[in-house]
């Protein structure tokens, strides 16, 4: 016990020392970027787009690793045990890190996660197969009003962004629909394409790769998304719905303030690279800039929003 605590303090001291030396010229060595989801998902694709820009701007490699399991909780519950020197950073996702600890004990609390930057979100979108009877969102709402419960929405996971969106939509539109969780965005999209469900709550990113095979009825963004210029937002149609899965970057709690700031600054530079923005928008992502200083305000807003929906979803407040 004594040896291990001695060891920890040495490591901590060393960490502090290097941190103090390197906050201005961060990064001076490769950065490990841990993604809590499988390779090939939205989180991974976005990180892969950040990677070359980060390397171009900082001259240091960014090494992407995957620690997956329990919808991301596996990685987030380990985050604070990692070294806080700015060279281990981890992707974080909303609503996951807010709803998961709310629903049950998953080994971390929302406040345990030291987010330093939020860089993009994928707006929720309602998709239907191209030969669907629903041409507009109004068609779908009318049908749902006439047949309570009959409209089935596929989505990725329980207590996920899609689940939240479906619950919120039901409330705003005054309808009852049925949410069918699938084990990821891909199987959920396949269920829509194969008409196993009547519609799907998905993201703009998933809709883009389907091209003409699906019709997007509405997008939950503030304004129309560049890749879907003809698709109305929920706001235009009279539903106050803006949201989706937000993705950011966190560091272990032991990371000193100036290093957190440095990580945030570098990520901010990546986020303002025109080439990066272009590629992200082509892929259906919406780029947002929430630097370290604005994170508390951003998180408070999102938490309030999700708490209201969580009550509707019946997630127990512990």
């Amino acid at each position, binding site marked *: 016990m004594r040896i291990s605590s001695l060891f920890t303090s040495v490591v901590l001291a060393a960490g502090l020392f290097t941190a103090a030396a390197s906050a201005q010229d961060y990064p001076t060595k490769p950065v490990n970027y841990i993604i809590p989801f499988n*390779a*090939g*998902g939205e989180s991974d694709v976005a990180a*892969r*787009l950040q990677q070359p820009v980060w390397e171009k701007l900082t001259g240091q490699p960014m090494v992407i690793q995957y620690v997956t399991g329990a919808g991301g909780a*596996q990685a987030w519950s380990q985050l604070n045990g990692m070294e806080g020197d700015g060279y281990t950073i981890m992707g974080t996702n909303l609503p996951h890190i807010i709803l998961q600890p709310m629903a049950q004990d998953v080994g971390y609390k929302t406040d345990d996660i030291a987010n330093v930057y939020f860089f993009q979100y994928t707006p929720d979108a309602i998709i239907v197969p191209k030969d669907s009877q629903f041409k507009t969102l109004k068609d779908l709402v009318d049908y749902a009003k006439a047949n309570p*419960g009959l409209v089935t929405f596929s989505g990725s996971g329980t*207590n996920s962004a899609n689940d939240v969106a479906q619950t919120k939509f039901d409330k705003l539109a005054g309808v009852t629909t049925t949410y069918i*969780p699938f084990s990821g965005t891909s199987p959920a999209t396949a269920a829509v394409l*194969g008409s196993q469900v009547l519609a799907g709550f998905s993201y703009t990113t998933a809709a883009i790769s389907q091209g003409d095979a699906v019709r997007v009825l509405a997008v939950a963004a503030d304004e129309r998304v560049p890749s879907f210029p003809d698709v109305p937002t929920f706001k235009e149609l009279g539903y106050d719905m803006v949201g989706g899965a937000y993705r950011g970057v966190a560091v272990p709690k032991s990371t000193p303030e100036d290093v957190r700031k440095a990580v945030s600054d570098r990520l901010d530079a990546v986020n303002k690279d025109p080439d990066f923005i272009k590629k992200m928008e082509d892929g259906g992502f919406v780029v947002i800039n929430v630097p370290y200083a604005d994170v508390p305000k951003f998180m408070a807003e999102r938490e309030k929003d999700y708490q209201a929906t969580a009550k509707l979803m019946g997630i127990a407040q512990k």
Partner: protein
Amino acid sequence: MDKLGYLAEALTPINMMLAAVGVLAGIVIGALPGLSATMAVAVLVPFTFTMDPASGLIVLGAIYTGAIYGGSYSAILVNTPGTPSAIATTFDGFPMAKRGDGALAVTLSTIASVTGGLVGALFLMFLAPPLARIALAFGPPEYFWLAVFGLTLISALSVGNLMKGLIGACFGLILSMVGVAVIGADVRFTMGSHVLLGGIDIVAGLIGLYCIPVLIDLIATKDPHLRVEGAQTGFRLKEAFRLVMGDKVNLLRSSVIGTLVGILPGAGGSVASLVSYSEARRSSKTPERFGTGHPGGIIATESANNATVGGGFIPTLVLGIPGTPPDAVILGALLVQGIKIGPALFTAQSQIVYTFIFGLIIGTILMLPIGLMVGRYAYQSIISIPKAALVPTIAFLTVIGSFAIHNNLNDTAVMIGLGVVGWVLNRAGYAPSPIVLGLVLGQIAEQGFVQSYLIGNAQQNVLGMFFGRPISLVIIVFSALTLFYPLIAKAIGAARARRSQTDIMVESGDGRSR
């Protein structure tokens, strides 16, 4: 035939070399338990960003196909599937190696893998758009019944020991439920510990249940790992070809099954090889020899799992929906390269697609010489390394492999824990395969069941959801056939016994010569 033009493009020396290196790297990674095809592809994705898109895709395809094939080595030689796709290869592969036919088993697996890979790639080239519709016709009820079909294999695997087989399967099903549920997000069977929150990883379970008992037995007994005296170590190519030719119906059927199952997102190589093994056994004249080192078992599973490579690319390239986990990684790589995937890919960027398919075919053919050489080397190392060195090496690999799944020591702990449980159960007569079947198929069955129920409930037609869909009904019929096959076979046997004695003599003689 403008396709031939793409063949010329794929045949550049640099692409050939990349395909060869990719296949070799894939074989080595796949052969190490725990290092799966998904991981092989994910690790090497960044290197492909510096290449042009077609070359990058060729490397990824070659690695993927090599890894699926490489998984058979450890299945045959150490009784541990190197990847989940090779689970069913242990059934007959290891008994063959045990009796000194390891070299033959590896050669058989090579020929079957190459054939399966080619069949899958040809389907991808010529029939991709129509076949992609199969992926969409499979809804939650079909997945549920497919998983049930896989589970019926237990009745065949545990002949004479059905009760223990079923208990093992139930144990496996319970293991598959551990952790946070995908549907409902309930936390189950974690005993309040965060270690089990992420559930029991299939690969960790595979290594633990198959490999650890083998290691403990190696230490506890004096017998050599594999029988060496009189073992032939050559390629035994002629003999293998003769066996494969004698079983070509099985080979082709399994390749087609592999392609079709590969098309289904969410099924994958493990289900494909289990289904084709089950079909091979059911239609064989000598089903009782399956599981005791029958070449037909290896031919079925290895052709099927390599056929899933081509099959899996069908929904990936046509629909933008990954057929298997490695496909998801490759899809992500395509997005980063700026290639628009989805329905437009085949028409708008046919050059890249066809160059890639030819690259896949070239990689698969290269697997024959490379695989034979690596396989021979692997077999000779396994039989010549003394046990005192072999056991620690494999033990070391199991720890590395289980850690590497998620970069997480929890999986290693689960692997060792299940290994010890597996050894104890093995001693009590509970084979690992039913447990693993439960673990692999449990999640597919559970999600399919709950989704079907939810959709059926919304439409107020739950029964129709489960029993009113044509594809489901076909799968149900096959499941029933497999489940009651031992009884049916007995009835047929009894009927045959009433016929003349000479008939039986001819038939059993015929069976032996196969």
